[in-house]
């Protein structure tokens, strides 16, 4: 099931395969792979964009190299924390990042996230595939995205649109 729209060229695309418990996100960026790769691996850059806007993010560890591990938390206004952790299976500069991912609210759940960076000549296409361990888990993840969408609302998105254009 694919959701695409005829919006600007950089719009995010999502594909949830009915036959495999995967979610594939594709997005293009107006920056070369070297720079996009840094934004994915350097914690002081990662903290600026990863995670829902309404939550504060704290990175406890972000050792983006082969065998390195990471842990970060998103914090609600009332102090509630949501932890995430995993290890970097492979970090291949400017090309590919393979890591495990666990949301600590579901401690037995783990997904394998593969990000690839494709050079489009000064621009970069990023493809992130999440392979989860069951269809139920995948569907729960998609459903959680709906929750975020409701809470953050379209106003936020409009803000960002005017900020970044």
């Amino acid at each position, binding site marked *: 099931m694919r959701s695409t729209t005829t919006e600007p060229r950089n719009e995010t695309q999502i594909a949830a395969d009915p036959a495999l418990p995967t979610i594939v996100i594709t997005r293009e960026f107006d*920056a070369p792979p070297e720079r996009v790769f840094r934004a994915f691996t350097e914690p002081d*850059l990662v903290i600026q964009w990863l995670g829902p806007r309404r939550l504060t993010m704290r990175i406890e560890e972000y050792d983006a190299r082969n065998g390195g591990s990471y842990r970060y938390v998103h914090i609600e206004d009332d102090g509630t924390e949501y932890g995430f952790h995993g290890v970097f299976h492979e970090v291949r500069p400017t090309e590919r990042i393979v890591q495990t991912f666990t949301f600590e609210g579901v401690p037995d759940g783990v997904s394998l996230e593969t990000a690839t960076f494709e050079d489009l000549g000064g621009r970069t296409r990023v493809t992130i595939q999440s392979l989860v361990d069951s269809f139920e888990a995948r569907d729960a993840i998609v459903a959680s995205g709906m929750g975020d969408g409701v809470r953050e609302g379209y106003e936020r998105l409009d803000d960002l649109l005017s900020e970044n254009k």
Partner: protein
Amino acid sequence: MNDDRLSRVFSALADPTRRDIVARLAAGDATVNTLAEPYDVTLQAVSKHLKVLEGAGLVRRTRDAQRRPCHLEADVFDLMTKWIERYRRAAEDRFRRLDAVLDQMDDSPAAGSRTEGAAS
């Protein structure tokens, strides 16, 4: 649509024959006999697939006399599309912040530590 329902829809569509049945019903209502024609399987097997699709709320069998044609519930697909669209927008929201980060990096390329030294 709750989590369980979404799961049932996704698993119902995990089977290629069922996906094909859905694609054909999208063109119009059809009876079990018509649906079974192109497949090298028994009527019973097709009925079984239809039961799964019915259980997921994707297909409804009307009480139209003896024919009981199968009807595709298009609104379920609309709901799924909406659901995925919300997820897509959450990701897009993140990536628009990443756009801004990448822009700033352009202005100050020395920002940030080197990968090898990250979080050590």
